[in-house]
């Protein structure tokens, strides 16, 4: 049955459905998910918007001739459009459009590396904790308790204050404060899988348990992990901008949307628009990423009750983005 048929099967009368032969090979879960995802307008527009930002970040040097860090007080506070400065210049004569583009590099790098890093760490911690159980598991659970008792923004600030505000430290810190949800998810799946028949069977024939469970784990929980990771991209971008705004993240001459906002606030009497652009960039990117995450989730488990799932998601992103 083609995808088109799947789509309309709900209205085909019973008789006709019965006459259609069952599929020889059903489409894989990834393909089904993609075909659903493709039909979700929000998710697709999110994907398009994110692609535009990724493109802008990758090809920043070709998209603008200006150096985002070049200070030239002669050309400070130019209006948009003068001298090829698409959005004008800031109080130090830096081209705003160029800064926005190069900031996208920082934000997206932070977003994706934090997501990937915390998925790796979370999967590892969760798998070890779920597999060995007992003392190791207890230690891990207490650690999660501790982590959850300190608001993440405070923890981030604390660590950056101690180790210094370097880009790599920020990424490490954000990873170290975001792996918990993935770890919990993986641990839960591991605990479930451990009880299953085939693990017993494998043990009987002497196959390494951990390997088997790990393989099944990847098969069973890769989708939820991906959704989780998507949400983490948005949360990490928000955290990065907050930290940079507070002066504990990205430092000049590097540039980031949060840092731009911090400058803009100082000079908002002079040029109010400067505070608008970076904020909109953050908003749009995070919105796009969240839409994609939503779309993936919808395309993966349509059976889960809508309200429950949304509830969970709202809570997660709610807590993430506000702390």
């Amino acid at each position, binding site marked *: 049955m083609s995808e088109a048929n799947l789509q309309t099967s709900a209205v085909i009368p019973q008789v006709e459905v019965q006459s259609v032969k069952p599929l020889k090979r059903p489409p894989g879960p990834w393909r089904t998910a993609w075909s659903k995802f493709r039909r979700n307008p929000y998710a697709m527009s999110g994907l398009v918007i994110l692609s535009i930002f990724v493109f802008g970040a990758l090809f920043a040097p070709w998209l603008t001739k200006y150096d985002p860090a070049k200070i030239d007080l002669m050309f400070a506070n130019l209006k948009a459009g003068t001298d090829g400065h698409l959005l004008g210049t800031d109080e130090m004569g830096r081209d705003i459009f160029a800064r926005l583009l190069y900031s996208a590099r920082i934000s997206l790098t932070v977003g994706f590396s934090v997501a990937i890093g915390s998925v790796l760490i979370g999967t590892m911690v969760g798998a070890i904790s779920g597999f060995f159980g007992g003392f190791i598991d207890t230690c891990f659970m*207490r*650690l999660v*308790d*501790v982590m*959850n*008792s*300190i*608001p993440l*923004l*405070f*923890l981030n*600030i*604390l*660590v*950056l*204050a*101690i*180790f*210094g505000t370097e880009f790599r430290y920020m990424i490490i810190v954000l990873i170290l404060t975001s792996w918990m949800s993935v770890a919990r998810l993986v641990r839960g799946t591991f605990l479930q899988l451990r009880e299953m028949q085939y693990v017993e069977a494998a043990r009987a024939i002497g196959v390494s348990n951990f390997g088997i469970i790990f393989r099944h784990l990847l098969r069973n929980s890769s989708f939820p992990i991906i959704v989780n990771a998507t949400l983490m991209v*948005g949360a990490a971008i*928000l955290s990065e*901008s*907050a930290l940079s*705004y*507070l*002066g*504990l993240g990205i430092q000049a001459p590097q540039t980031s949307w*949060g840092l731009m*906002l911090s400058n*803009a*606030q100082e000079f*908002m*009497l002079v040029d*109010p628009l400067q*505070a*608008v652009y*970076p*904020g909109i960039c*953050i*908003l*749009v990117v*995070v*919105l796009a990423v*969240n839409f994609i995450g939503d779309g993936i989730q919808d395309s993966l488990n349509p059976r889960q009750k809508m*309200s*429950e799932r*949304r*509830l969970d998601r*709202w*809570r997660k*992103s*709610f*807590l993430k*983005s*506000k*702390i």
Partner: protein
Amino acid sequence: MTEFIIRRTLQSVLVLFLITLVTFGLIHAAPGGPFQMMLAPGLSPEAMEIQAHNMGLDKPLPMQYLHWLGNLLQGDLGYTFKNHVPIGDIIWPTVKNTFVLMSVAWLLTLLIAIPWGIYNSTKVYSLSDQSASFISYIGFAMPTFWFGIILQQIFSIKLDWFPLSDMYSMDKEGQIGDLMMHLILPVTVLTLSFLAGYVKYSRASMLEVLDQDYIRTARAKGVREGKVVYKHALRNALIPVITIIALDLPLLVAGAALTENVFNWPGMGRLFVQMAVAREYSVLMAITLLIAVIVIIGNLLADLLYAVVDPRVQLGRKGGRSA
């Protein structure tokens, strides 16, 4: 009940103890030792040693930790490095200021969010419902501090309706009317950013309850629809909402950090950022601990509250059924 409280309290004490270990450990893991940069630059090695000895820095780490913990238990938070001010004197006033800001924002959020969410649950997909979900999407993706900056630009700079920042105007210290004017913008930011989550949450919780069999029973009894919603459904729907709110309370306190910085509000969050920039580790440790205590008390309260509202929860033992 008592047994439960004791068990939970012991658990909390353990978590707190771990937090002291983690924060202490973090700070002492700083490159070059925690207090290196506190010492005046250009001091001779001998002078440095003397100063370190005075501060107890030459003792082994476990001793230092015990010493610090002992002082902490006696309510002695220590002194700042730079001006040797008692840390307690710095922190307590900010706690009060944060409390003022947060309690107003929090109460306002609840007063709007819960009735709105309940209303939306009875009018699903109405204009009101859709605008709430629009707000929530935007709210989750928008950096709160950016929203604050935009409000400042519009309402303080352009329209000049409200003061730009701070808690009181100059020489109006302590006047309630002045405080109110200063509260409006930050409270708006906090309320709007928290609102969407709670509207969604109470709506979803209410929808779930309205779907329950006992609601149908109530309708079958001939109970008016209004009373079905406000008597039979509301109490059940509020159970999870109340718990979540109690759990979030400390996070809201922490969430003020960014808003406090935007509006220069002399609260804990702003102090934390200032002290982070100034590398005043002892103050950071003290605030981190304080917030952890608030978080843990919040969790404990949430559990107790749950037991009070829901007759099904019997603390301390599993709810068995008689007959």
